[in-house]
């Protein structure tokens, strides 16, 4: 009880206060006619990676509609309407570069929402030259030679680093940590940060391997993991579709320890596994649900989900024929940060926006107040770092509920030497990945 109280009180009402302040800044009424500032959405809108891109358009559009309904974004005493242009990069470098050129040269966008990975590698020379913000979902794209690439709205890999602490804190007698994720650049980097953190927290890492992207049958993967007799099976940044299939196998092959992961799509998993099993195995992960009572009433999170359902839910004008996912709001976090930075700076000049964001003691995001951080992880303070929510699956509601909301920076400062050494040993530090 005491522990839970501690965890839940780490970042309580500051989220709400910051958001209310931020939104009020954006909504000061004015009679001046508004100019338009274009922003871009450059991500996979089709193909296998579309799940990380396409839904993000909804969240960005909700933010844009909200700002425009209030007369526009107030920057330097003047209102600017926002307009979004989307380009499908199909998660390929060449398409992404084509899209970046089109968005910048034809539409003069000042900010681009993206997934990252290969498209980030392909576009950064052009976008750096043009001084256009490129916001990736995952922080691993941040590098010192990409001054206008910002990331971190997505909790990866900070959630993967904090989960070893969370489970150790709640279960000090457990020792054996197994971790797996798909074999691709982001998975390798994120897993290295998790392994470093697990070691720093005193776990014995008994399984640390990747599975191929072509894997269709996870039974042998799980058999191999369980052969190491782990107390915790962590799925790191394993993609949600794989997560469901791996958890199903953990259940079928009789695993009784703790399951932990970056993102567990509860609804999908519960089609395959009883809710009681998920509760018993803790199933800790991030990407909280915005209808979680933990956020409080009223809250921006609850309002967002209502607005999303009204615009994109069943029977709505823009019905997208699916339920809301974490990706629907994930991209929007960075758009909000950029907009806030422009307001603080009083200009759309990217250097001044960065300067203002780095100087800010608190940047409002939908996950809570953030700071610009990351120099020791990525070589530059371009990671937006809000507190990290950790949720567990609960059987009574068949949903996940927030158990902790943790500030990353203090935790990292106390352990960084051990963690960075492991990451370097695995060749995944930012200056080793060029």
């Amino acid at each position, binding site marked *: 009880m005491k522990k839970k109280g501690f965890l839940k009180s780490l970042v309580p009402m500051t989220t709400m206060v910051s958001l209310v302040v931020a939104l009020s800044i954006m909504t000061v009424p004015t009679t001046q006619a508004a100019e338009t500032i274009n922003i871009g959405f450059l991500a996979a809108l*089709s193909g*296998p990676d579309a799940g990380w891109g396409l839904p993000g358009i909804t969240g960005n559009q909700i933010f844009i509609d909200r700002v425009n309904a209030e007369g526009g974004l107030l920057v330097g005493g003047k209102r600017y309407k926002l307009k979004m242009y989307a380009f499908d990069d199909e998660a390929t470098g060449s398409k992404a570069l084509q899209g970046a050129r089109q968005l910048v040269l034809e539409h003069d966008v000042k900010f681009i929402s993206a997934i990252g990975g290969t498209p980030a590698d392909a576009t950064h020379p052009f976008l750096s030259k043009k001084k256009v913000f490129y916001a990736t979902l995952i922080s691993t794209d941040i590098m010192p030679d990409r001054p206008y690439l910002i990331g971190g709205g997505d909790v990866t890999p900070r959630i993967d680093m904090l989960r070893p602490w969370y489970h150790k804190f709640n279960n000090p007698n457990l020792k054996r940590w197994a971790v797996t994720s798909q074999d691709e650049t982001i998975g390798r980097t994120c897993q290295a940060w998790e392994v470093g953190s697990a070691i720093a927290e005193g776990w014995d890492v008994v399984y640390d391997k*990747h599975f191929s992207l072509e894997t*269709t*049958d996870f039974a042998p*993967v799980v058999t*191999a993991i369980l052969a190491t007799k782990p107390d915790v099976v962590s799925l790191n940044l394993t993609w949600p*579709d794989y997560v469901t299939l791996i958890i199903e196998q953990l259940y*079928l092959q009789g695993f009784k320890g703790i399951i932990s992961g970056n993102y567990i799509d509860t609804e999908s998993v519960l089609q*395959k596994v009883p809710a009681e099993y998920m509760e018993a195995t803790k199933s800790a992960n991030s990407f909280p649900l915005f209808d979680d009572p933990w956020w409080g009433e009223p809250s921006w999170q609850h309002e967002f989900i209502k607005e999303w359902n009204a615009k994109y839910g069943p029977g709505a004008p823009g019905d997208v024929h699916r339920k809301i996912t974490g990706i629907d709001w994930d991209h929007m976090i960075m758009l909000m940060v950029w907009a806030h930075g422009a307001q603080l700076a009083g200009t759309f000049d990217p250097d001044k926006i960065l300067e203002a964001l780095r100087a800010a003691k608190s940047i409002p995001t939908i996950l809570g107040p953030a700071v610009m951080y990351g120099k020791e992880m990525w070589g530059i303070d371009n990671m937006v770092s809000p507190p990290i929510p950790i949720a567990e699956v609960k059987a009574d509601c068949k949903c996940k509920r927030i158990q902790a909301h943790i500030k990353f920076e203090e935790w990292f400062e106390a352990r960084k030497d051990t963690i960075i050494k492991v990451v370097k040993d695995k060749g995944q530090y930012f200056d080793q990945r060029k």
Partner: protein
Amino acid sequence: MELTTFVQTIANSVVAGSIYATVAVGLALAFGVMQMANHAHGEFFMLGAYVVYVFYALGGMPFPLAVLAAIPTIAIIGLLTERLIFRPTRGNVLAGFMATAGLTWVLQTAAGRIWGLAFMKMIPTPYMGAANIAGAQIGWQRVLIIPAACILLGLLWFFLHRVRWGKALRACAQDPEAAALQGISINKMTALAMGIAGAYAGVAGALLAPIHAVTPYMGRDLLITAFIVVIVGGMSSIEGAVLAAFLLGFIHTFVTTIFDATSAVMVGVAFMAIILIVKPTGLMGRVKA
């Protein structure tokens, strides 16, 4: 490796082999008759899974009926593919292959447009829980694959060896010109082969839908495995495909368990390369006169 892990790995291998065999056998059949290299075979598999999604997950139809519904549905798509693509490109394997590569894209896009993109479709597991077989825990849905594969492969063998039309198919596969001289209609046989290939891919997708990530792109990775199986088995040999499916199932599963899943993919492809070097016609393929 501990005994429990070993038994579990054997069980996993048998299930994997059954899956590969069910998926690959249609591909081998289509190639055997008039060399129809169907690049869209993986998408037939995907559509079979979507039939289960629509009828079972959305429509509430009992799972076995939804699986049965996939058979005629995808068989018809197979027939249409033969009529619209393979028949006009007959005699040009590459043209048929490339045209069906285009069909792959069309079917993926259509599925995405109709049923949406984002993450996998939610399909409840019809038979939750696991069977304990000699210490190995296998989900009931996966256990079901083994007898289903045996029945499907047995039916195909019976059809090809005991039924007149099946014998005609084999004759056509061995020597189309001689078969035509005997009064066998090549058009009917190619249509029949593609209908059966579609039905088998469809039923495989339908059976696997609850244990697979159902997305418009789910056929892509399995197609690669299916081609490896067909090439290793001998391009037009059904028996060879079944043998190769189980060999590859055991190799993939054991290498994954002992080493890792990334190495398993490499070893699988290396296995294909070695077979082709040692026996270029595949395990049970024959050189045509």
